[in-house]
């Protein structure tokens, strides 16, 4: 039920990106304990990255 952008496995894996991976960071903000960065992918789709931050705003290691 999911989705992917990558080419099929038969595609050469070492080919470098042919387009900028991310056009720009739209905005960055705090949401609760997270720092949120909003990007646009090269094809126009939204990409949002979330990072845990401490009370003082420092990034924390939330583990994987």
């Amino acid at each position, binding site marked *: 039920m999911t989705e*992917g952008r*990558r080419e099929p496995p038969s595609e050469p894996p070492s080919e470098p990106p042919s387009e900028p991976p991310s056009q720009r960071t739209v905005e960055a903000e705090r949401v*609760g304990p997270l720092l949120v960065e909003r990007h646009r992918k090269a094809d126009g789709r939204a990409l949002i990255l979330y990072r845990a931050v401490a009370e003082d705003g420092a990034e924390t290691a939330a583990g994987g």
Partner: protein
Amino acid sequence: MGELRFNELRAEQVDYTIDRQERTFLPPADHCPLCPTRPGRTATEIPFASFEIAVFDNRFPAFAAPRGAAEVVVYTDRHDGSFATLAPARARALMWVWRERYATLAARADVEYVLIFENRGVEVGVTLHHPHGQIYGYPFLPPVPAAEAAADERLGGCAPCELLRRELADGRRVVYENAHVAVYVPYAARWPYEAHVVLRAHRASLPRCTAAELAGLADALQALTRGYDALFARPFPYVMAVHQAPTGGARAAPSPAAPGATDPGRAASDPVDPGGGAGGHVHVEFYPPLRTAEKLKYLAGSEQGGGTFIVDVLPEEAARALREAIAGAA
């Protein structure tokens, strides 16, 4: 783009999205589109060398603006593992991501219901193994939340509140509790090891939860999923669905900051009051297809033709086994 057709005999919408036939299907790990992008390699969905949690518009959406939304939520940049094996801090952070996405999608005029879910395991149709979930913003109210609203009506108030009260009073099907959340196999479970993870307090949606409640929810979800994996000593497939209030009623005053559509990354601080409409109580339902370690429960004649589930395991027995598995996995 997809096409909605109304099925008169079932009184339900059917979504035809034929482009999804082309979506990536079980690629090898070194071609995973949800991994971070490695130097010198073709960009994945996340064109960064590392990340914590990422959300992006589904490349093969079942719903898309101006008729809904479909997003992918990647829990970690590590390819292996599962929700159960996330560090507790990451699982708690994920609750905030869900909260933010619900609030943002609730603000959109073309989204009537936000469903956060995860399909785990090829048994339930997973096409990528990297730990991730999805979010659909439906442009209509789907049948399941509509049935929950009908249950509210039938029980004369919040149905999940009443059912939680009954389960805690009975106790036989409760498998885990913390200060903010209880987990039980429901009295009339449709799947052998179905479980519901329910906020004790009446909260219509995640934006209405306190930080402590979100943490309690994450802890309960991890306790259950770790218990699932311990139950048969194997990765336990499931469908996980986060149930919250419909969002159509939350937009009494549509905001110009919520244009709908073209920007699913809008801020969560939108001035709507998501989840403040009628109905809804935050709970997470798990539908695992296994009935034994090797045997699947199929939706067959009675389930599909008659709409009646035939179940091989009594909920009380399933709860006993699951309770022991959760305790053993703690």
